[in-house]
């Protein structure tokens, strides 16, 4: 018997309310079809979703946590990137 583990898959579910698929977790499956079935059984058994995406975890490229300072801290001091410096003319509602 082989003791090799099946590949890991990341699971994304779109709920009834939400427009986009959200990452909900991961699971193991031998192939993509099985990953969809398993995701259905593990993550939608309480009516959480109406659509499932799966992607093999090894295909996800992630940012390096050690580079977090360089990647994300510089944005902290750039408040002008938020559109909060405009004078809203009178008569414009829903802003």
């Amino acid at each position, binding site marked *: 018997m082989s003791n090799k583990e099946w590949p890991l898959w990341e699971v994304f579910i779109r709920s009834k309310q939400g427009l986009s698929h959200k990452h909900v977790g991961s*699971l*193991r499956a031998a192939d993509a079809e099985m990953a969809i079935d*398993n995701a259905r059984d593990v993550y939608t058994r309480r009516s959480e979703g109406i659509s499932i995406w799966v992607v093999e975890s090894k295909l996800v490229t992630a940012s390096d946590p050690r580079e977090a300072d360089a990647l994300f801290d510089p944005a902290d001091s750039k408040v002008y990137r938020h559109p909060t410096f405009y004078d809203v003319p009178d008569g414009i509602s829903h802003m």
Partner: protein
Amino acid sequence: MNREQALFEYTLRIADDSLILGHRVSEWCGHGPILEEDIAMTNIALDLVGQATNFLEYAAKVDGKGKTADDLAFLRYDRDYRNALLVEQKNGHFGDTMARQFFFDVFRKLFFEGLTKSTDETLAAIAEKSLKETKYHLKHSSEWVIRLGDGTEESHQKIQESINNLWRFTEELFFSNDVDTMLLESGIAVDLNALYPLWKSQVAHVLAEATLEIPSGTFQQKGGRTGFHSEHLGYLLAEMQYMQRAYPGMEW
């Protein structure tokens, strides 16, 4: 036998197939080969027990003797169960369980498709609901039969053995007697004779994809539909009924 008695008997067959197979599959809970499959099988078991509840509630009503669905599920003796022999067979290894499930699911999907057109509105409505679940069960079991058959040399050999061993219980799924004859006249029952060739061709299709052989010349076992069961059912009932037998009327 009047119409009510026939309808009771007929509904029990459907209910007992779901109940006994549901219990069998539930035995995998906590023993699945991987967590994901464990959950998948538990879901399937719950679907089946849910179907059994619906059919048994209706059977109890048709029976009209003041019994509940629980009475029928937990307080009958083995000779009173009407499930096919296939569903009471032991789980064996995972391939055995999947082969048993596959044979049953192909039958069940065809059967429920027919039952949705029944002139009995309650049976038709429960069939409609159960059909969706069954389609998923069939997808799940077919994929496994294909995966194991067309997998490694060892998995191929094991699932072929499972197919061969269980083949002798398949024709009983299409058993019919005077109960069917009576209910076919009023459009309540499904014509099982018409389903058999469809079952066989659908099974052949999946087995071909799985590179598996269809057994031939196997002696076909019968008896479950008339209450003559294999020894395995007694052990199953002993476990399933234990709580109600030991503590009558117990609720939680």
